[in-house]
Protein backbone atom coordinates (compact mmCIF):
# COMPACT_ATOMS: atom_id res chain seq x y z
CA UNK A 1 0.00 0.00 0.00
CA UNK A 2 1.53 3.28 -1.07
CA UNK A 3 1.74 5.94 1.59
CA UNK A 4 0.79 9.29 0.11
CA UNK A 5 0.84 12.59 1.86
CA UNK A 6 -2.75 13.10 2.87
CA UNK A 7 -2.33 16.85 2.38
CA UNK A 8 -2.22 16.31 -1.37
CA UNK A 9 -5.87 15.32 -1.44
CA UNK A 10 -8.03 16.91 -4.09
CA UNK A 11 -11.44 15.31 -3.91
CA UNK A 12 -13.06 14.79 -0.54
CA UNK A 13 -16.02 12.37 -0.45
CA UNK A 14 -18.46 12.24 2.47
CA UNK A 15 -20.90 9.48 3.15
CA UNK A 16 -24.65 10.12 3.11
CA UNK A 17 -26.53 6.84 3.11
CA UNK A 18 -29.86 8.60 2.74
CA UNK A 19 -28.79 9.57 -0.82
CA UNK A 20 -28.33 5.99 -1.96
CA UNK A 21 -31.13 3.91 -0.49
CA UNK A 22 -30.86 0.28 -1.47
CA UNK A 23 -27.17 0.44 -2.20
CA UNK A 24 -24.43 -0.59 0.13
CA UNK A 25 -22.32 2.11 1.73
CA UNK A 26 -19.07 0.26 1.07
CA UNK A 27 -19.92 -0.32 -2.57
CA UNK A 28 -20.74 3.36 -3.14
CA UNK A 29 -17.63 4.57 -1.34
CA UNK A 30 -15.39 2.12 -3.13
CA UNK A 31 -16.74 3.42 -6.43
CA UNK A 32 -15.97 6.95 -5.26
CA UNK A 33 -12.41 5.97 -4.36
CA UNK A 34 -11.94 4.20 -7.65
CA UNK A 35 -13.12 7.33 -9.42
CA UNK A 36 -10.57 9.45 -7.64
CA UNK A 37 -11.88 10.48 -4.24
CA UNK A 38 -8.73 10.59 -2.14
CA UNK A 39 -10.08 11.28 1.33
CA UNK A 40 -13.25 9.85 2.82
CA UNK A 41 -15.35 11.02 5.72
CA UNK A 42 -17.94 9.00 7.55
CA UNK A 43 -20.82 11.24 8.44
CA UNK A 44 -24.05 9.95 9.93
CA UNK A 45 -25.37 12.47 12.38
CA UNK A 46 -28.35 10.54 13.66
CA UNK A 47 -27.06 6.97 13.48
CA UNK A 48 -26.81 4.94 16.68
CA UNK A 49 -23.26 4.69 17.88
CA UNK A 50 -23.12 0.95 17.37
CA UNK A 51 -24.05 1.22 13.67
CA UNK A 52 -21.67 4.10 13.28
CA UNK A 53 -18.80 2.11 14.72
CA UNK A 54 -19.63 -0.83 12.46
CA UNK A 55 -19.56 1.43 9.37
CA UNK A 56 -16.39 3.09 10.56
CA UNK A 57 -14.59 -0.22 10.93
CA UNK A 58 -15.76 -1.38 7.51
CA UNK A 59 -14.67 1.89 5.90
CA UNK A 60 -11.37 1.69 7.73
CA UNK A 61 -10.70 -1.63 6.11
CA UNK A 62 -11.79 -0.33 2.69
CA UNK A 63 -9.86 2.94 2.78
CA UNK A 64 -6.76 1.26 4.13
CA UNK A 65 -6.81 -0.99 1.12
CA UNK A 66 -6.68 2.03 -1.19
CA UNK A 67 -4.36 4.14 0.95
CA UNK A 68 -7.06 6.73 1.48
CA UNK A 69 -7.40 8.55 4.81
CA UNK A 70 -10.60 7.98 6.78
CA UNK A 71 -12.07 10.81 8.81
CA UNK A 72 -14.99 10.42 11.19
CA UNK A 73 -17.37 13.29 11.57
CA UNK A 74 -17.99 14.56 15.07
CA UNK A 75 -17.63 11.27 16.97
CA UNK A 76 -14.13 11.30 18.30
CA UNK A 77 -14.68 8.14 20.28
CA UNK A 78 -15.73 6.29 17.13
CA UNK A 79 -12.71 7.65 15.29
CA UNK A 80 -10.48 6.30 18.04
CA UNK A 81 -12.26 2.97 18.30
CA UNK A 82 -12.18 2.34 14.55
CA UNK A 83 -8.59 3.47 14.14
CA UNK A 84 -9.58 6.24 11.72
CA UNK A 85 -6.95 8.74 10.58
CA UNK A 86 -8.76 11.61 12.17
CA UNK A 87 -11.93 13.47 12.93
CA UNK A 88 -13.87 16.36 11.54
CA UNK A 89 -15.57 18.76 13.91
CA UNK A 90 -17.96 21.64 13.48
CA UNK A 91 -17.97 25.04 15.11
CA UNK A 92 -20.39 23.79 17.77
CA UNK A 93 -18.67 20.48 18.47
CA UNK A 94 -15.93 19.62 20.91
CA UNK A 95 -13.29 22.35 20.94
CA UNK A 96 -10.28 21.74 18.74
CA UNK A 97 -7.85 21.66 21.64
CA UNK A 98 -9.88 18.94 23.37
CA UNK A 99 -10.14 16.93 20.19
CA UNK A 100 -6.40 17.22 19.74
CA UNK A 101 -5.74 16.16 23.31
CA UNK A 102 -7.88 13.07 22.87
CA UNK A 103 -6.79 12.10 19.36
CA UNK A 104 -3.13 12.92 19.73
CA UNK A 105 -0.67 14.90 17.63
CA UNK A 106 -0.70 12.59 14.62
CA UNK A 107 -4.45 12.56 14.02
CA UNK A 108 -5.87 14.59 11.16
CA UNK A 109 -8.31 17.10 12.59
CA UNK A 110 -10.47 19.18 10.33
CA UNK A 111 -12.92 21.94 11.19
CA UNK A 112 -15.88 23.39 9.33
CA UNK A 113 -15.59 27.16 8.93
CA UNK A 114 -18.06 29.64 7.56
CA UNK A 115 -16.00 32.80 7.51
CA UNK A 116 -12.39 33.90 7.42
CA UNK A 117 -12.22 34.65 11.14
CA UNK A 118 -13.16 31.06 11.91
CA UNK A 119 -10.68 29.84 9.32
CA UNK A 120 -7.82 31.82 10.80
CA UNK A 121 -8.80 30.79 14.32
CA UNK A 122 -8.77 27.13 13.25
CA UNK A 123 -5.40 27.64 11.62
CA UNK A 124 -3.99 29.19 14.78
CA UNK A 125 -5.60 26.49 16.89
CA UNK A 126 -3.72 23.76 15.08
CA UNK A 127 -6.33 22.35 12.72
CA UNK A 128 -4.84 20.19 9.98
CA UNK A 129 -7.34 21.32 7.39
CA UNK A 130 -10.54 23.31 7.23
CA UNK A 131 -13.77 23.08 5.33
CA UNK A 132 -14.81 26.30 3.58
CA UNK A 133 -18.53 26.50 3.07
CA UNK A 134 -21.28 25.90 2.46
CA UNK A 135 -20.44 27.53 -0.85
CA UNK A 136 -23.96 26.87 -2.09
CA UNK A 137 -27.19 26.05 -0.30
CA UNK A 138 -27.20 22.35 0.44
CA UNK A 139 -29.65 19.69 1.51
CA UNK A 140 -27.09 18.12 3.82
CA UNK A 141 -26.89 21.37 5.85
CA UNK A 142 -30.38 22.82 5.60
CA UNK A 143 -30.91 26.21 7.12
CA UNK A 144 -27.31 27.35 6.86
CA UNK A 145 -26.74 30.40 4.69
CA UNK A 146 -24.41 29.83 1.76
CA UNK A 147 -21.11 31.66 2.05
CA UNK A 148 -20.76 31.90 -1.75
CA UNK A 149 -17.51 31.93 -3.68
CA UNK A 150 -16.64 35.21 -1.97
CA UNK A 151 -15.46 33.23 1.04
CA UNK A 152 -13.67 30.80 -1.27
CA UNK A 153 -11.73 33.76 -2.65
CA UNK A 154 -10.89 34.95 0.84
CA UNK A 155 -9.73 31.50 1.82
CA UNK A 156 -7.60 31.26 -1.30
CA UNK A 157 -5.92 34.50 -0.39
CA UNK A 158 -5.51 34.00 3.34
CA UNK A 159 -5.52 30.38 4.46
CA UNK A 160 -2.24 28.54 4.41
CA UNK A 161 -3.24 25.13 5.76
CA UNK A 162 -5.10 22.74 3.43
CA UNK A 163 -8.68 23.83 2.91
CA UNK A 164 -11.48 22.29 0.97
CA UNK A 165 -14.50 23.99 -0.54
CA UNK A 166 -17.71 22.27 0.47
CA UNK A 167 -21.45 22.67 0.28
CA UNK A 168 -23.74 22.14 -2.69
CA UNK A 169 -20.84 21.66 -5.06
CA UNK A 170 -21.76 19.77 -8.22
CA UNK A 171 -20.16 19.17 -11.58
CA UNK A 172 -22.20 22.10 -12.83
CA UNK A 173 -20.82 24.67 -10.43
CA UNK A 174 -17.39 23.21 -9.66
CA UNK A 175 -15.77 25.39 -12.33
CA UNK A 176 -16.91 28.50 -10.53
CA UNK A 177 -15.52 27.24 -7.24
CA UNK A 178 -12.20 26.39 -8.84
CA UNK A 179 -12.10 29.75 -10.56
CA UNK A 180 -12.52 31.36 -7.17
CA UNK A 181 -9.28 29.73 -6.13
CA UNK A 182 -10.27 26.38 -4.64
CA UNK A 183 -7.81 23.58 -5.25
CA UNK A 184 -9.69 20.94 -3.25
CA UNK A 185 -13.33 20.12 -3.51
CA UNK A 186 -15.70 18.18 -1.34
CA UNK A 187 -18.93 16.81 -2.75
CA UNK A 188 -21.53 14.79 -0.95
CA UNK A 189 -24.82 14.25 -2.76
CA UNK A 190 -23.24 14.88 -6.17
CA UNK A 191 -21.09 11.78 -5.62
CA UNK A 192 -22.96 9.38 -3.38
CA UNK A 193 -26.35 10.39 -4.77
CA UNK A 194 -25.24 9.52 -8.26
CA UNK A 195 -25.94 6.23 -9.94
CA UNK A 196 -22.32 6.17 -11.04
CA UNK A 197 -20.14 7.60 -8.28
CA UNK A 198 -16.90 6.62 -10.03
CA UNK A 199 -17.78 8.52 -13.17
CA UNK A 200 -18.78 11.57 -11.20
CA UNK A 201 -15.53 11.46 -9.28
CA UNK A 202 -13.53 11.11 -12.47
CA UNK A 203 -15.30 14.16 -13.86
CA UNK A 204 -14.52 16.11 -10.69
CA UNK A 205 -10.89 15.04 -10.92
CA UNK A 206 -10.72 16.14 -14.53
CA UNK A 207 -11.94 19.58 -13.53
CA UNK A 208 -9.50 19.72 -10.63
CA UNK A 209 -6.62 18.66 -12.84
CA UNK A 210 -7.59 21.12 -15.54
CA UNK A 211 -7.80 23.92 -13.00
CA UNK A 212 -4.35 23.09 -11.71
CA UNK A 213 -2.95 22.89 -15.22
CA UNK A 214 -4.43 26.21 -16.24
CA UNK A 215 -8.12 26.21 -15.85
CA UNK A 216 -11.18 24.34 -16.63
CA UNK A 217 -11.91 24.21 -20.32
CA UNK A 218 -12.36 27.78 -21.50
CA UNK A 219 -10.44 29.37 -18.66
CA UNK A 220 -6.78 30.36 -18.49
CA UNK A 221 -4.60 31.70 -15.73
CA UNK A 222 -3.12 35.13 -16.32
CA UNK A 223 -1.56 37.89 -14.28
CA UNK A 224 -3.17 41.32 -14.52
CA UNK A 225 -1.43 44.21 -12.77
CA UNK A 226 0.39 41.75 -10.57
CA UNK A 227 -2.77 39.89 -9.60
CA UNK A 228 -3.48 36.28 -10.52
CA UNK A 229 -6.73 36.04 -12.42
CA UNK A 230 -8.62 33.40 -14.32
CA UNK A 231 -10.29 34.41 -17.51
CA UNK A 232 -12.10 32.95 -20.44
CA UNK A 233 -11.03 35.91 -22.57
CA UNK A 234 -8.67 35.04 -25.39
CA UNK A 235 -7.88 38.51 -26.68
CA UNK A 236 -6.81 41.74 -25.04
CA UNK A 237 -10.05 43.32 -26.18
CA UNK A 238 -12.19 40.62 -24.61
CA UNK A 239 -10.22 40.83 -21.38
CA UNK A 240 -10.55 44.60 -21.15
CA UNK A 241 -14.27 44.19 -21.67
CA UNK A 242 -14.56 41.41 -19.10
CA UNK A 243 -12.86 43.68 -16.56
CA UNK A 244 -15.44 46.38 -17.18
CA UNK A 245 -12.87 48.71 -18.69
CA UNK A 246 -14.21 48.96 -22.22
CA UNK A 247 -14.19 52.54 -23.40
CA UNK A 248 -11.74 53.64 -20.73
CA UNK A 249 -8.59 55.44 -21.72
CA UNK A 250 -5.91 52.95 -20.84
CA UNK A 251 -2.74 51.39 -22.17
CA UNK A 252 -2.17 47.66 -22.26
CA UNK A 253 1.17 45.95 -22.03
CA UNK A 254 1.10 42.23 -22.82
CA UNK A 255 4.16 40.22 -21.76
CA UNK A 256 6.23 43.40 -21.75
CA UNK A 257 5.07 44.67 -25.14
CA UNK A 258 2.62 47.52 -25.58
CA UNK A 259 -0.45 46.53 -27.55
CA UNK A 260 -1.87 49.34 -29.64
CA UNK A 261 -5.56 49.88 -29.14
CA UNK A 262 -6.27 49.00 -32.76
CA UNK A 263 -4.73 45.59 -32.13
CA UNK A 264 -6.65 44.75 -28.96
CA UNK A 265 -9.32 42.81 -30.78
CA UNK A 266 -6.80 40.47 -32.34
CA UNK A 267 -4.02 40.37 -29.74
CA UNK A 268 -4.21 36.86 -28.32
CA UNK A 269 -3.63 36.13 -24.66
CA UNK A 270 -2.49 32.67 -23.70
CA UNK A 271 -2.28 30.80 -20.44
CA UNK A 272 0.38 32.34 -18.22
CA UNK A 273 0.21 35.72 -19.94
CA UNK A 274 1.17 38.77 -17.93
CA UNK A 275 -0.65 42.03 -18.56
CA UNK A 276 -0.25 45.55 -17.27
CA UNK A 277 -3.18 47.91 -17.62
CA UNK A 278 -2.19 51.50 -16.92
CA UNK A 279 -3.70 54.92 -17.27
CA UNK A 280 -3.02 58.54 -16.39
CA UNK A 281 -3.60 59.59 -12.81
CA UNK A 282 -2.89 62.84 -11.02
CA UNK A 283 0.80 63.62 -10.72
CA UNK A 284 3.28 66.45 -10.78
Amino acid at each position, binding site marked *: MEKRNWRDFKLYAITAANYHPGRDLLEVMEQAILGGADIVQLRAKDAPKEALLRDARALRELTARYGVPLIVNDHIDVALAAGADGAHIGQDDLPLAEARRILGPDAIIGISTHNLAQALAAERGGADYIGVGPVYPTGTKPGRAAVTTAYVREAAANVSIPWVAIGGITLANAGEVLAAGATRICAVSAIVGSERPAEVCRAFRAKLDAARAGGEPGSIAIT*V*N*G*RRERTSARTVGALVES*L*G*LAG*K*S*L*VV*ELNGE*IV*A*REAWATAAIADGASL*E*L*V*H*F*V*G*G*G
Partner: protein
Amino acid sequence: MATMEGQAHDGIGDELIIGGKSLRSRFFLGTGRFPSPAVFRMALEASAAEVVTFAVRRVNLDYAEDDAILQHMDGSGYTYLPNTSGAGNADEAVRIAKLARAAGLSDWIKVEISAHPRTLLPDPIETLRATERLVREGFVVLPYTSDDPILCRRLEEAGAAAVMPGGAPIGTGLGLLNPYNLGLIAEEAGVPVIVDAGIGSAADIVQAMELGASGILVNTPVAKALDPVGMARAMRLAVEAGRLSYLSGRIPKRRYASASSETEGVSVLPGGNGEGRYAAAYGVSNAEAAHGRQAAGPAGSRAKAGDGSDWPESGTR
Protein backbone atom coordinates in the same frame (compact mmCIF):
# COMPACT_ATOMS: atom_id res chain seq x y z
CA MET B 1 2.02 87.24 -21.38
CA ALA B 2 -0.81 87.26 -23.81
CA THR B 3 -2.68 89.52 -21.45
CA MET B 4 0.06 92.12 -21.69
CA GLU B 5 -0.88 93.07 -25.21
CA GLY B 6 0.53 96.33 -26.37
CA GLN B 7 3.50 96.32 -24.05
CA ALA B 8 7.08 95.88 -24.92
CA HIS B 9 7.45 92.22 -23.98
CA ASP B 10 4.57 90.11 -25.05
CA GLY B 11 2.99 88.13 -27.82
CA ILE B 12 5.12 86.40 -30.37
CA GLY B 13 8.30 87.92 -29.09
CA ASP B 14 7.95 86.27 -25.71
CA GLU B 15 6.43 82.93 -26.50
CA LEU B 16 7.87 79.92 -24.84
CA ILE B 17 8.77 77.31 -27.41
CA ILE B 18 9.39 73.74 -26.33
CA GLY B 19 9.77 70.86 -28.72
CA GLY B 20 8.55 73.07 -31.54
CA LYS B 21 5.35 73.91 -29.69
CA SER B 22 4.60 77.52 -28.92
CA LEU B 23 3.14 78.13 -25.48
CA ARG B 24 1.48 81.26 -24.25
CA SER B 25 1.54 80.27 -20.60
CA ARG B 26 4.79 79.74 -18.76
CA PHE B 27 2.98 78.15 -15.86
CA PHE B 28 2.83 74.33 -15.89
CA LEU B 29 0.45 72.64 -13.50
CA GLY B 30 0.60 69.19 -11.95
CA THR B 31 -2.62 67.30 -11.44
CA GLY B 32 -1.95 65.31 -8.28
CA ARG B 33 -3.25 65.58 -4.74
CA PHE B 34 -6.07 68.03 -5.31
CA PRO B 35 -8.86 67.81 -2.74
CA SER B 36 -11.43 66.97 -5.41
CA PRO B 37 -11.83 66.82 -9.18
CA ALA B 38 -14.01 69.93 -9.01
CA VAL B 39 -11.33 71.94 -7.22
CA PHE B 40 -8.77 70.66 -9.68
CA ARG B 41 -10.86 71.83 -12.61
CA MET B 42 -11.29 75.29 -11.13
CA ALA B 43 -7.62 75.58 -10.22
CA LEU B 44 -6.62 74.51 -13.70
CA GLU B 45 -8.78 77.21 -15.15
CA ALA B 46 -7.46 79.82 -12.73
CA SER B 47 -3.88 78.83 -13.51
CA ALA B 48 -4.36 79.34 -17.26
CA ALA B 49 -1.81 76.56 -17.61
CA GLU B 50 -1.48 74.90 -20.99
CA VAL B 51 0.96 72.19 -19.98
CA VAL B 52 -0.38 69.71 -17.44
CA THR B 53 1.49 66.80 -15.92
CA PHE B 54 0.30 63.31 -15.05
CA ALA B 55 1.58 60.10 -13.61
CA VAL B 56 1.17 56.66 -15.17
CA ARG B 57 -0.24 54.04 -12.84
CA ARG B 58 -1.92 50.67 -12.89
CA VAL B 59 -5.66 50.71 -13.38
CA ASN B 60 -7.34 49.74 -10.13
CA LEU B 61 -9.17 46.60 -11.17
CA ASP B 62 -11.58 46.81 -8.25
CA TYR B 63 -12.51 50.48 -8.59
CA ALA B 64 -11.93 51.34 -12.19
CA GLU B 65 -14.13 54.40 -11.94
CA ASP B 66 -12.33 56.46 -9.42
CA ASP B 67 -8.92 57.59 -10.39
CA ALA B 68 -8.50 58.41 -14.06
CA ILE B 69 -7.63 62.09 -14.23
CA LEU B 70 -8.38 62.67 -17.88
CA GLN B 71 -12.11 62.41 -17.33
CA HIS B 72 -11.86 65.60 -15.30
CA MET B 73 -10.36 67.66 -18.11
CA ASP B 74 -12.29 69.10 -20.99
CA GLY B 75 -9.90 67.82 -23.60
CA SER B 76 -8.51 70.20 -26.10
CA GLY B 77 -6.00 72.96 -25.74
CA TYR B 78 -3.72 71.25 -23.26
CA THR B 79 -0.29 69.82 -23.77
CA TYR B 80 0.03 66.59 -21.83
CA LEU B 81 3.27 66.05 -19.99
CA PRO B 82 3.20 62.60 -18.37
CA ASN B 83 5.97 61.89 -15.90
CA THR B 84 7.96 58.77 -15.18
CA SER B 85 7.47 58.94 -11.44
CA GLY B 86 7.89 55.59 -9.81
CA ALA B 87 10.88 54.80 -11.98
CA GLY B 88 14.10 54.10 -10.14
CA ASN B 89 16.35 53.82 -13.15
CA ALA B 90 16.57 54.63 -16.84
CA ASP B 91 15.06 51.31 -17.95
CA GLU B 92 11.95 51.83 -15.86
CA ALA B 93 11.65 55.43 -16.99
CA VAL B 94 11.87 54.45 -20.65
CA ARG B 95 9.22 51.79 -20.14
CA ILE B 96 6.84 54.19 -18.43
CA ALA B 97 7.48 56.79 -21.13
CA LYS B 98 6.50 54.31 -23.82
CA LEU B 99 3.35 53.35 -21.93
CA ALA B 100 2.50 57.03 -21.63
CA ARG B 101 3.07 57.70 -25.30
CA ALA B 102 0.90 54.72 -26.22
CA ALA B 103 -2.05 56.56 -24.67
CA GLY B 104 -1.88 58.61 -27.85
CA LEU B 105 -2.12 62.01 -26.22
CA SER B 106 1.43 63.25 -26.27
CA ASP B 107 5.01 62.39 -27.06
CA TRP B 108 6.24 64.70 -24.34
CA ILE B 109 7.74 63.07 -21.28
CA LYS B 110 8.96 64.42 -17.97
CA VAL B 111 11.81 62.17 -16.92
CA GLU B 112 11.56 61.77 -13.17
CA ILE B 113 13.83 59.18 -11.61
CA SER B 114 13.90 59.42 -7.87
CA ALA B 115 16.91 58.00 -6.15
CA HIS B 116 16.11 58.60 -2.52
CA PRO B 117 12.86 57.78 -0.73
CA ARG B 118 12.99 60.70 1.68
CA THR B 119 14.15 63.48 -0.59
CA LEU B 120 12.94 62.09 -3.92
CA LEU B 121 15.97 63.81 -5.40
CA PRO B 122 16.57 62.82 -9.00
CA ASP B 123 19.30 60.35 -9.90
CA PRO B 124 21.52 62.42 -12.21
CA ILE B 125 23.18 59.50 -13.98
CA GLU B 126 20.00 57.59 -14.70
CA THR B 127 18.22 60.82 -15.66
CA LEU B 128 20.89 61.55 -18.25
CA ARG B 129 20.76 57.98 -19.57
CA ALA B 130 16.99 58.00 -19.84
CA THR B 131 17.09 61.39 -21.57
CA GLU B 132 19.58 60.14 -24.16
CA ARG B 133 17.49 57.05 -24.90
CA LEU B 134 14.15 58.80 -25.01
CA VAL B 135 15.47 61.49 -27.32
CA ARG B 136 16.62 58.72 -29.66
CA GLU B 137 13.12 57.24 -29.43
CA GLY B 138 11.66 60.50 -30.64
CA PHE B 139 10.23 61.84 -27.40
CA VAL B 140 10.14 65.49 -26.43
CA VAL B 141 12.09 65.06 -23.22
CA LEU B 142 11.86 67.37 -20.22
CA PRO B 143 14.04 65.94 -17.47
CA TYR B 144 13.45 66.85 -13.85
CA THR B 145 16.99 67.34 -12.63
CA SER B 146 19.15 68.60 -9.82
CA ASP B 147 19.95 72.30 -9.91
CA ASP B 148 23.39 71.59 -11.28
CA PRO B 149 24.46 73.81 -14.20
CA ILE B 150 26.83 71.24 -15.66
CA LEU B 151 24.29 68.45 -15.51
CA CYS B 152 21.73 70.71 -17.13
CA ARG B 153 24.18 71.39 -19.91
CA ARG B 154 24.77 67.67 -20.36
CA LEU B 155 21.03 67.08 -20.55
CA GLU B 156 20.73 69.79 -23.14
CA GLU B 157 23.53 68.21 -25.15
CA ALA B 158 21.69 64.90 -24.89
CA GLY B 159 18.77 66.51 -26.65
CA ALA B 160 16.46 67.55 -23.83
CA ALA B 161 13.79 69.93 -25.10
CA ALA B 162 13.92 71.77 -21.81
CA VAL B 163 15.61 71.24 -18.46
CA MET B 164 13.64 71.24 -15.24
CA PRO B 165 15.89 71.88 -12.26
CA GLY B 166 14.30 71.61 -8.85
CA GLY B 167 14.20 74.59 -6.52
CA ALA B 168 14.01 72.22 -3.54
CA PRO B 169 12.87 68.62 -3.03
CA ILE B 170 9.39 67.78 -4.35
CA GLY B 171 6.56 68.94 -2.14
CA THR B 172 8.75 70.66 0.45
CA GLY B 173 7.77 74.23 -0.39
CA LEU B 174 11.26 75.32 0.68
CA GLY B 175 11.61 77.68 -2.27
CA LEU B 176 14.82 78.13 -4.20
CA LEU B 177 17.60 76.60 -2.13
CA ASN B 178 20.30 77.56 -4.57
CA PRO B 179 19.34 80.68 -6.49
CA TYR B 180 22.92 81.08 -7.60
CA ASN B 181 22.88 77.78 -9.44
CA LEU B 182 19.43 78.36 -10.88
CA GLY B 183 20.58 81.75 -12.12
CA LEU B 184 23.61 80.16 -13.75
CA ILE B 185 21.48 77.49 -15.39
CA ALA B 186 19.10 80.10 -16.76
CA GLU B 187 22.00 82.18 -17.97
CA GLU B 188 23.79 79.39 -19.79
CA ALA B 189 21.01 77.13 -21.03
CA GLY B 190 20.23 77.01 -24.71
CA VAL B 191 16.87 75.37 -24.01
CA PRO B 192 14.03 76.57 -21.81
CA VAL B 193 14.55 76.21 -18.07
CA ILE B 194 11.44 75.20 -16.16
CA VAL B 195 11.90 75.39 -12.40
CA ASP B 196 10.15 72.32 -11.08
CA ALA B 197 9.62 71.24 -7.48
CA GLY B 198 10.16 72.93 -4.15
CA ILE B 199 8.12 76.04 -4.84
CA GLY B 200 6.17 77.17 -1.77
CA SER B 201 4.45 80.39 -2.68
CA ALA B 202 4.09 83.05 -5.34
CA ALA B 203 7.22 84.80 -4.02
CA ASP B 204 9.38 81.81 -4.92
CA ILE B 205 7.99 81.89 -8.43
CA VAL B 206 8.73 85.56 -8.90
CA GLN B 207 12.26 84.94 -7.67
CA ALA B 208 12.77 82.07 -10.10
CA MET B 209 11.39 84.00 -13.04
CA GLU B 210 13.54 87.02 -12.20
CA LEU B 211 16.54 84.74 -12.16
CA GLY B 212 15.71 84.02 -15.77
CA ALA B 213 13.68 80.83 -15.59
CA SER B 214 11.55 80.29 -18.68
CA GLY B 215 8.68 78.77 -16.77
CA ILE B 216 7.48 77.13 -13.58
CA LEU B 217 5.98 73.75 -12.86
CA VAL B 218 4.11 73.32 -9.59
CA ASN B 219 1.69 70.85 -8.15
CA THR B 220 1.69 70.51 -4.38
CA PRO B 221 1.78 74.24 -3.50
CA VAL B 222 -1.43 74.72 -5.46
CA ALA B 223 -3.14 71.42 -4.68
CA LYS B 224 -2.42 71.63 -0.96
CA ALA B 225 -2.94 75.36 -0.51
CA LEU B 226 -5.77 76.41 1.77
CA ASP B 227 -7.48 77.73 -1.35
CA PRO B 228 -6.05 75.94 -4.37
CA VAL B 229 -7.99 78.06 -6.83
CA GLY B 230 -6.76 81.29 -5.27
CA MET B 231 -3.19 80.00 -5.19
CA ALA B 232 -3.39 78.89 -8.81
CA ARG B 233 -4.29 82.43 -9.78
CA ALA B 234 -1.67 83.97 -7.51
CA MET B 235 1.03 81.78 -8.99
CA ARG B 236 -0.05 82.42 -12.53
CA LEU B 237 0.21 86.15 -11.83
CA ALA B 238 3.58 85.58 -10.16
CA VAL B 239 4.86 83.85 -13.27
CA GLU B 240 3.73 86.78 -15.37
CA ALA B 241 5.04 89.35 -12.91
CA GLY B 242 8.39 87.63 -12.54
CA ARG B 243 8.79 87.19 -16.26
CA LEU B 244 7.94 90.80 -17.02
CA SER B 245 10.21 91.97 -14.25
CA TYR B 246 13.05 89.91 -15.65
CA LEU B 247 12.51 91.17 -19.17
CA SER B 248 12.08 94.75 -18.14
CA GLY B 249 15.47 95.06 -16.52
CA ARG B 250 15.68 95.66 -12.84
CA ILE B 251 17.74 98.48 -11.46
CA PRO B 252 21.19 97.83 -10.16
CA LYS B 253 21.47 97.28 -6.45
CA ARG B 254 23.20 100.12 -4.69
CA ARG B 255 24.87 100.54 -1.40
CA TYR B 256 23.20 103.85 -0.64
CA ALA B 257 19.97 105.66 -1.28
CA SER B 258 19.21 107.54 -4.41
CA ALA B 259 16.51 110.21 -4.39
CA SER B 260 13.49 109.44 -6.41
CA SER B 261 12.20 112.98 -5.99
CA GLU B 262 13.76 115.88 -7.76
CA THR B 263 16.40 117.34 -5.49
CA GLU B 264 16.31 120.81 -7.04
CA GLY B 265 13.92 123.50 -5.90
CA VAL B 266 13.10 122.24 -2.46
CA SER B 267 11.29 124.97 -0.60
CA VAL B 268 12.96 125.91 2.66
CA LEU B 269 11.52 127.21 5.88
CA PRO B 270 11.80 130.99 6.09
CA GLY B 271 14.84 131.81 8.16
CA GLY B 272 16.43 128.48 7.60
CA ASN B 273 19.74 128.21 5.85
CA GLY B 274 18.73 125.36 3.64
CA GLU B 275 21.31 123.02 5.07
CA GLY B 276 20.01 119.99 6.86
CA ARG B 277 21.50 118.95 10.14
CA TYR B 278 22.42 115.53 8.82
CA ALA B 279 24.85 116.67 6.19
CA ALA B 280 27.04 118.13 8.82
CA ALA B 281 26.54 115.25 11.17
CA TYR B 282 27.60 112.61 8.64
CA GLY B 283 30.09 114.72 6.78
CA VAL B 284 28.53 114.13 3.46
CA SER B 285 27.19 116.56 0.94
CA ASN B 286 23.57 117.45 0.83
CA ALA B 287 23.32 115.77 -2.49
CA GLU B 288 24.40 112.52 -0.99
CA ALA B 289 22.26 112.97 2.05
CA ALA B 290 19.16 113.72 0.01
CA HIS B 291 19.71 111.15 -2.62
CA GLY B 292 16.74 108.87 -2.56
CA ARG B 293 15.34 110.29 0.63
CA GLN B 294 11.89 111.30 -0.27
CA ALA B 295 10.23 113.89 1.91
CA ALA B 296 13.29 113.89 4.04
CA GLY B 297 11.81 116.42 6.36
CA PRO B 298 12.89 119.98 6.90
CA ALA B 299 16.42 119.09 6.05
CA GLY B 300 15.74 118.98 2.32
CA SER B 301 18.24 121.06 0.42
CA ARG B 302 19.03 122.68 -2.87
CA ALA B 303 22.03 120.53 -3.38
CA LYS B 304 22.57 119.04 -6.80
CA ALA B 305 21.66 115.46 -7.38
CA GLY B 306 24.72 113.30 -7.39
CA ASP B 307 25.45 109.69 -8.16
CA GLY B 308 25.29 107.31 -5.30
CA SER B 309 27.88 104.60 -5.31
CA ASP B 310 26.63 101.40 -6.87
CA TRP B 311 26.38 98.26 -4.82
CA PRO B 312 29.33 96.23 -6.02
CA GLU B 313 27.37 93.54 -7.84
CA SER B 314 24.80 94.95 -10.17
CA GLY B 315 21.48 93.25 -10.62
CA THR B 316 20.92 94.80 -14.00
CA ARG B 317 20.14 92.51 -16.83
